């Protein structure tokens, strides 16, 4: 179909020809100046599309309708394409020249928490959400709380499980560095009435030679729940939930019989790790003597207690091969977590 002469330099363009020219030229409009001249050229009051529409007047009514509708559709289409290009060019700052986007950004310096702190917080939070409140206790402790009230009498072979660093004092020979966070079991029960649900993180100390898997100075997280009607099944339920959160829901967990003087029955909870069972925590039902020493009626109340080493768990999960890294304060270690 041929069109009558129009105005300007463009003569007798069809709708299709105009569309082709407009799209091609829009593509190559690589600056805002050229984009503007494209707009004037095609969509302006004196532009080529206007000229095409004006030229319709010479046609008969039937042709006018058909071509007119096509030309109006083209106007919508070109306006929309133009809008897109304008938005696009705004965001890419086509006009200001390019920059080296490979240069590093101005990264704010983020500090970080020590991996032990991170692990302790993760553990305590898991228990906080099960209603356990975080509390802390003294690191320099009395023998009474660290041992006697936990059913670990003096000169008993069970004490061999905790090699102790003692405080040297002229006046007191019953002061030590706590060997576990368990003395807080006795302190918490002595200070308050049931129900008890606490989680106790903190530093502990043992007279133990150090190697890749042993430190004389380490953290422990203790837990205690005491109330009427607490059972071994509750212990399992609570610790399963903990293991699920820390090690993932598909991790295999097992509970086996173990011995700690302040619980009966005693429990070792292990998880499967690369084909081996790794002990994660010691636990058990609070020994009736421990309840009685703290002034609780063991005929009325039962409870469970547990303890674990956050550094050990962190070593497992983060594949840390030497526990001595934790307190070396080497930034090459700390900045990895």
């Amino acid at each position: 179909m041929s069109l009558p002469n129009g105005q300007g330099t463009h003569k007798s363009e069809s709708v299709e020809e105009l569309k082709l020219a407009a799209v091609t030229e829009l593509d190559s409009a690589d600056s805002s100046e050229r984009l503007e001249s494209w707009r004037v050229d095609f969509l302006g009051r004196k532009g080529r599309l206007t000229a095409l529409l004006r030229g319709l007047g010479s046609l008969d009514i039937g042709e006018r309708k058909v071509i007119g509708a096509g030309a109006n559709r083209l106007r919508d289409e070109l306006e929309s394409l133009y809008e897109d290009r304008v938005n696009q060019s705004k965001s890419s700052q086509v006009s200001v020249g390019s920059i080296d986007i490979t240069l590093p950004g101005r990264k704010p310096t983020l500090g970080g928490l020590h991996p032990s702190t991170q692990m302790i917080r993760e553990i305590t939070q898991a228990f906080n959400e099960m209603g356990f409140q975080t509390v802390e206790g003294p690191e320099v402790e009395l023998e009474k709380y660290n041992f006697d009230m936990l059913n670990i009498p003096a000169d008993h072979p069970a004490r061999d499980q905790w090699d102790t660093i003692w405080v040297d004092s002229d006046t007191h020979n019953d002061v030590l560095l706590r060997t576990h966070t368990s003395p807080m079991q006795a302190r918490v029960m002595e200070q308050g009435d049931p129900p008890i649900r606490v989680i106790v993180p903190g530093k502990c100390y043992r007279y133990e030679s150090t190697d890749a898997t042993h430190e004389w100075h380490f953290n422990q997280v203790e837990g205690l729940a005491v109330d009427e009607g607490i059972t071994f099944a509750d212990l399992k339920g609570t610790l399963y939930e903990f293991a699920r959160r820390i090690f993932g829901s598909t991790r295999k967990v097992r509970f086996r019989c173990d011995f700690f003087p302040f619980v009966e029955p005693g429990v070792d909870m292990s998880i499967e790790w690369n084909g081996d069972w790794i002990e994660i925590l010691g636990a058990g039902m609070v020994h009736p003597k421990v309840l009685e020493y703290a002034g609780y009626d063991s005929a009325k109340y039962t409870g469970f207690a547990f303890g674990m080493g956050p550094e050990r768990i962190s070593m497992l999960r983060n594949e840390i091969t030497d526990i001595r890294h934790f307190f070396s304060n080497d930034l090459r270690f700390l900045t990895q977590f």
Partner: protein
Amino acid sequence: MKVPVSWLSEYVDIDMSLDDLAHRLTMGGNEVDAIERTGWIDNVVVGHVLAVAPHPDADRLRLVTVDHGSGQAEVVCGAPNVAEGQKIAYASIGAVLQDAYSDEPGKTRKLKRSKIRGVVSEGMACSVRELGIGDDHDGILVLDDSAVIGTPIGEILGESVLDIELTPNRPDCLGVVGVARDVSAITRSPLKQPNIDFEATGPDVNSLAQVEIADPDLCLRYTATVIRGVNIGPSPQWLQDRLTSIGERSISNLVDITNFVMFELGQPLHAFDLDKVVDQKIIVRRATEGEKLVTLDDKERELESEMLLIADPDRGIGLAGVMGGANTEISDSTTNVILESATFHGVNNRKTARGLELASQATLRFEKSLRTGLSEVGLRRATKLIAEIAGGEVATGIIDVYPGKGKEQDSVRLDSNHIERILGLKIENAEVETTLGNLGFDLDADGDGWEVKIPYWRPDISIPEDLVEEIARIVGYDNIPITPLAGRPPQWQPQPEMDLRNRVTDALSQAGMRETISYSASTNDGEARVALPAETTSALKLRNPINADYAVMRRTLREAILNTVARNSRTWRGPIAVFETGRVFLDYGEGLPEERQMATGAFAGPRNELHWDASTVGSDFYDAKGAVEAVLDDLGIEAVFKEGEDATFTPGRTAVIKVASASHAVIGVVGEVASGVFSQFDAEVESVAMFELDLAAILKVMQDTGTGLDKFKEFVRLPASHRDLSLIVDTGITAGQIIDIANRNRIVTSATVFDLFEGKGVPEGKKAVAVRLIYQSPNKTLTTDQVGKIERQILKQLADELGAELRVQ
């Protein structure tokens, strides 16, 4: 505890794989660390010693000709016990043996052809240690004569051994029968008890020997038998093999039997040469202070008055339950024997053994407070074996001095509902009875529970919970249900100290610093490096520190942080920005020390990571001060930084941090570390800026003033206007002085120094300070005239008080 499977099988049939058995024992509380398969060594066979000749160049070595079934070999041997006609374990070249001279357990070495003092040795005659089946290395292992020459050694010595990590509550499992009883309960296969019946044909035992217990508090029971006319000699092969299989050395039939019964039943025993016991009378008494005794290891021991002695009327003849005396030791010439099986006081026995550093297998058992019933069983078993193996005539009856009779707890009451109360699982009465029955408990059903008799081998059972554990571990912890913790949650209690520490830790970490955790102990000298104030308490000393570097509990975190800076300065190229929030230990000499929470941090090295658009200057005072300001802003504490002195820091570059509120309490210090302090830390950085915040002091301020919770303040919606002033002041005038004057006017809502300049264009001794003032009234829009008026006022005050002039551009 090592439990050879062949030995275990004597008392219980094992109808499952060893891996399954190990798993089930582990789940039930006896953790099997490993299943060791010993004695299976390639290139080691039974050899026959054909000849023993002296080594031409070495007195202590001999040349041994061995027939090993496929030929003969000449080996050089240093063992004193090698003799012609023996059957030995012969290792040919290439055998991999335990390295007997290595301190590292399990280290092996491959046997090579070698010349020993000029003679080629074609292999080796092996000791127990070299074969990896025990510790003995005093001589070579001599096999039973019946061993067939050339047989692989594994067929003779091969054994699977369960290595069980016992818990301290189970002395019964320090005997193989104890482990067998667990296996029996787990597998429901019956236990076959060892035979303890012996035939007594001799005279009444009381006519041959007497026993008197002078200190019945320390010896609860003493049983003894007398066997006359025994033949002391080597043990039969089966007995030697049993001991060898657990790493013990065979000594003589009599001694071996006492050891065997200890490892079988868990009861330590001791045999005395009766003829050497004066008057054939044994007295069990405390030693006198300083009394001396030569023990079996030929060492003279000086005793203390709380040590229990076995004595005759003239002298000590043994250290009760620890080690026998040399004077009554069984020898080759012994013919009459008195066999002791006693129950000694556990704690006392342990103290004695520890005091003399004589840890023995006997003490390992006695210290666990064995029940008196076990001593008689052990006595009867050993007596039966002596009569069988060493011959002789057993006297009629046993000596049984039993001051502890009737004083032990006899039984435990177990209510059936108590089991469910503890476990959360209902266990049928019949199952309770079977389970406990299989473990050897006698139950007397009584109403809604049982009276459970405590067996003689279980000193760990005293309360119903102990029985609940017995049931649970055999039923299996796996079978106990899993329930969420129900019931009332406890009332929440505030933990302000912990909360504050966590908040400060978070703020410092968000401010770009890295948290560190140091050992809580140090030394007085180490802490002296940071020049602690004279009023600091003396340090809490440790009686047995892990080593001399950690002799006292720390009183400061400054030393730790400077150590951290120093160690990282040698390996870390970027900024060092580290802090620690932890406890220091202040001993006021009364009760436990104060454990005071502090936060200490340091900046050293470059301020920024190397970056194309960041300055490469080093960090300084203002980094440390900025961190403090960030923390205090976060806590909502308004602080002032006052010039101050602190021996850790450089004078003139130190600020004491005080609260602005009425108390003016000191809450910390910030400054550049004094070079005299810093130089003692071997740090490869130019300088260190450090701060310390006393969290206990901060907490007190917050509690006294009710700070901590941010309260919303309606912001002023009226326009603010800002003016920049460029002032010329003496260099000694501080920014703080200028800001204080500007801030006197209520309408000035903020005054900020935003530029400092000295040098060209500024007169000597003066500096240019640019200050931006923001003027805003809470209730009206300020006009230009009003702002101008206030500004003139401020400029006048600055001029009058500080000599400040407006800079002419």
